[in-house]
């Protein structure tokens, strides 16, 4: 047994005798020894980073939908939400640059996440064929789900950048009329419609797969746990796609009603300074 242990590749091989005698400093010898036997920690870190960036983006997606859908309650509420994120509550006046900063941060995170996720994409035709043939042969739920995540993820490379650049370059144009005009008069609604489906599907599947991957919320019975998670995923995707569709419809309706006055800024009803300007338009 002791011989097995000694010859095990797990035990770092001793440095050649010559090295010991030529007086390599102790530190250099150690690092040489470590680097030649120790496996890189980066695959672990990249895997963690992919999960963490994805988790953060999915949570952002949920929060984002909550804020955007405030238009369903009232135009003024959405106006207040937008000003809130421009720091009005803190600085006394709105600073749209804060929105730009958030958009820049999300863009960076998105790039990191996309770059990490791309490691898992099929590389080249051989891998592509191998996976798609396997998927159609197997008819297995989670395998097909991953493919849907690859496809939606690929779509999100393009769709998110359009929206993020808008937010980055025109951060002050967030408000009931401003956003509705962008959706309808600005012709952005097809992008938002596609973005809604791809992002919500990708996020919902992503959260489910995160839980399964790391063993969160699975419980003692993995099969029952996974069935439960699957139900949660269905509810998640259905809820957010429905909410998103209703919200988009609200912006489209508002945008159509406001089309002739496109470009006009929204002024909340209580604002005395602008009531005369706004009067009679609605």
């Amino acid at each position, binding site marked *: 047994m*002791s011989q097995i*242990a000694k010859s095990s590749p797990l035990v770092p091989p001793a440095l050649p005798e010559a090295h010991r005698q030529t007086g390599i400093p102790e530190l250099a010898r150690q690092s040489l020894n470590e680097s030649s036997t120790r496996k890189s920690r980066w695959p672990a*870190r990249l895997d963690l980073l992919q999960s963490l960036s994805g988790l953060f983006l999915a949570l952002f997606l949920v929060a984002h939908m909550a804020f955007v859908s405030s238009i369903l309650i009232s135009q003024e509420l959405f106006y207040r939400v937008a000003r809130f994120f421009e720091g009005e509550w803190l600085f006394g006046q709105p600073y749209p640059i804060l929105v730009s900063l958030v958009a820049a941060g999300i863009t960076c995170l998105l790039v990191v996440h996309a770059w990490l996720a791309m490691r898992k994409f099929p590389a080249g035709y051989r891998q592509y064929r191998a*996976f798609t*043939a*396997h998927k159609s042969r197997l008819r297995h739920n*989670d*395998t097909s789900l991953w493919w849907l995540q690859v496809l939606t993820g690929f779509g999100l490379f393009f769709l998110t950048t359009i929206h993020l650049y808008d937010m980055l370059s025109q951060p002050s144009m967030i408000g009931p009329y401003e956003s509705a005009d962008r959706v309808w008069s600005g012709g952005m609604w097809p992008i938002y419609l596609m973005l809604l489906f791809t992002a919500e599907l990708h996020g919902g599947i992503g959260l489910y797969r995160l839980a*399964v991957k790391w063993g969160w919320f699975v419980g003692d019975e993995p099969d029952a746990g996974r069935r439960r998670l699957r139900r949660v995923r269905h509810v998640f995707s259905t809820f957010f796609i429905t909410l998103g569709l209703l919200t988009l419809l609200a912006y489209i309706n508002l945008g159509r009603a406001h089309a002739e006055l496109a470009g006009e800024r929204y002024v909340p009803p209580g604002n005395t300074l602008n009531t005369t300007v706004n009067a009679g338009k609605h």
Partner: protein
Amino acid sequence: MITLFRKPKPGAAPRRLTLHILRCNPADPASKPYLQAFELEEAEGMTLFIALNEIRATQDPSLQFDFVCRAGICGSCAMLVDGRPALACRTLTRDYGSDITLAPLPFFELIGDLSVNTGKWMRGTAERLQTWIAQSEAVDLDALEARMEPALAEAIYELDRCIECGCCIAGCGTAQMNENFVGAVGLNKIARFRLDPRDTRSDAEFFELIGDDDGVFGCMSLLGCHDLCPKELPLQTQIAFLRRKMAVTGLY
């Protein structure tokens, strides 16, 4: 279709089954893969093992396939049944339609027809992952073996039930794209030896074996392995557990 409806009515004439079998003989360079159809009459409680033996005995003695135990213990008879990996000896024909397509497991070296060399790959993986009890100190063979809690022994035994049939590899999307991937069978073995108190390896040492994209971080959690494992091993839980442990190890 729901299995219940497939049960033959008492007194009804037995079904005629058609087995479409992928034939190929890699030893013959001229051999090209093709599907050959074999017809036979279904018998009560017929498994694919029985069907294939009947075909070989009565229709084509050259048909190649592997069997040893007939009871889901040896892991020799895994094949693709209508595209999904399964043990032929535990697959009842009545659970399928009258047309069944059989193909060899992908990924492994093809011996001929439905016979693949899983053993060669399993052996290589075992050596690569050092799936044996590694001890840092010599064992005193005269001393009594250290006692183990029954619950722990049960847990080890649970993972030790793996029969190396290869279904998890054939059901794995990652393995299809990366032939160096160790698969659920490899990861399950590491989980098994990690549990074993006689194995003195640390997580850092296990990281050396599976801490990369050919190991636990290559797994994309598609869970074909978990869902198709004929022994119903808790592969989903074990891989997630290893991933957590190896991710923590990877932080240092």
